[in-house]
């Protein structure tokens, strides 16, 4: 008799013991898996570079790029000549985003709350939204010149629409029961808007803000490509025209930090203000 059977009281049933199969891939920690993917990517890159599948002039080696990353990073941290450029682009992004959020929220409220807005304003917004908005860049440059304002304008122009859509969708998403409840409580239209529709629409609003936070950087850089100035876009274009590809890669990487920071800021605000929404924590891959 084995230990297992003797330990069991007489007449007790045998135990059904079995383990669910778990793939060894699922057991790898996330950080390790991510590192493996990164190493694979760099290896392929190195391979392509080494055997000149793509010309070395166009594609620098990972090592060259890493070195350039350090150089550019050192310049930025040490307050070198690159830093004012980054600051200009950051300003464009911040001001553009602030304008987009304000304008988008106002327009979105008009469209989402008033029937006139929905019937008469929304069709125009949809029409403009379907246009490739980057195509407006030359117009903004000829109107506002080569300074910061034309970049702010394009950045805001691109980022406004997702905010409008998010705000309007949020206002429309109000639960029918909740609206009925507010009516029976005798709530005014403004009270219903402020205490019910806007809070319950916040998840949609933040979805719009996240899309806007990505669009605003794209808008600022596009305008800098086309309209010169002293921003990061200008630096990228100059480096590219000199075929200084490591520099281009490095600049893009630091630029993406700006986009990430904006995105993270939105996510942080969302966590703070929409803490009550069940999807807020779960569906966020970043942060």
């Amino acid at each position, binding site marked *: 008799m084995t230990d297992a059977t003797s330990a069991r009281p007489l007449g007790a049933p045998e135990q059904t013991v079995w383990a669910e199969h778990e793939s060894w891939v699922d057991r790898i920690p996330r950080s390790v898996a991510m590192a493996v993917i990164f190493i694979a990517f760099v290896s392929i890159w190195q391979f392509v570079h080494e055997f000149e599948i793509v010309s070395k002039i166009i594609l620098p080696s990972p090592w060259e790029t890493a070195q350039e990353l350090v150089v550019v990073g050192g310049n930025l941290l040490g307050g070198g000549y690159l830093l004012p450029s980054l600051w200009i682009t950051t300003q464009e992004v911040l001001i553009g985003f602030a304008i987009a959020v304000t304008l988008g929220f106002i327009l979105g409220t008009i469209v989402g709350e008033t029937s006139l807005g929905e019937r008469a304003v929304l069709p125009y917004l949809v029409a403009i939204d379907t246009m490739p908005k980057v195509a407006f860049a030359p117009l903004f440059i000829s109107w506002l010149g080569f300074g910061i304002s034309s970049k702010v304008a394009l950045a805001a122009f691109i980022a406004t629409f997702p905010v409008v859509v998010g705000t309007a969708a949020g206002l429309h998403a109000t*639960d029918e029961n909740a609206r*009925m*409840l507010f*009516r*029976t*409580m*005798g709530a005014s239209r403004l*009270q219903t808007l402020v205490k019910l529709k806007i809070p319950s629409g916040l998840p949609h609003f933040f979805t719009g803000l996240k899309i806007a936070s990505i669009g605003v950087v794209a808008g600022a850089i596009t305008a800098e490509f086309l309209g010169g100035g002293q921003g990061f876009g200008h630096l990228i274009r100059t480096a590219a025209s000199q075929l200084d590809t490591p520099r281009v890669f490095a600049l893009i990487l630091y630029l993406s930090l700006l986009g990430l920071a904006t995105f993270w800021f939105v996510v942080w605000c969302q966590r703070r203000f929409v803490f*009550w929404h069940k999807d807020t924590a779960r569906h966020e891959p970043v942060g």
Partner: protein
Amino acid sequence: MDLAAAPSAAHPAGQEGRPVYQLRGVSKRFARRNVHALDRVDLTLHEGSFASIIGASGCGKSTLLKIMAGVLPPSEGSVILEGQHVTGPRRDIGMMFQQATLFPWRTTVENVVLPIEIRDGKAAARAKHADARALLELVGLAGFEHVYPSELSGGMAQRAAICRMLITEPAVLLLDEPFSALDELSRDFMNMELQRICTERNATALLVTHSIPEAVILSDIVYVMSPRPGRFLDAVPIGLPRPRTLHMMTEPAFGRLVDRIRGQLDKGAFL
């Protein structure tokens, strides 16, 4: 069937309270959809009594409740609460729906005082926090004041909704299938809780439901409603002693009442 005098005649003798809510000849037509939703409905709610309206889906009972809540105007007839015509939402009407509809960005106590905040502003709402806590205690939610609704179960959320309905001290409670989204066990329990709360506060209540046992166990009188156009077929006085218990559901008297109402509903279905 002549039911004009039925409510008062049917009400158990000796318990008659003062009439709180009176409907006379209330009709509702939706011209655009060519629907005759309600046809000359008469209804009197007496103080401290519990009435139910039972009927199939789409028989017009929700329309009637909306008219009584002042969110929908009647086409004809008079709707009088505490001597005044109901021409809009009123603070002396408390309402509850199938869904608890608590707002997830407000704590339980903030949800409870919401009607006060809407009517009298934030300062008045804050002053009512103590009352709200007392109500939460009444429904067994003591200690959950500062919890967000996502942490409450369905039954707990409905209890908080009861508190929200009671905080304005309404003259009449309009209950639109309040527990039909709950599971059977919680529902029975909540119905007993509702009875206790109504008795303690001597509340005047009208319940709309499509559960016959629920209507019988809670009510002093059950109105059976038929659809297209919505009208009362019968008013069934429920003479079961109070307080009611779930055990009564197994008694023959209870079965006879359920049977009578079911018979009326079946008849109505073929009209």
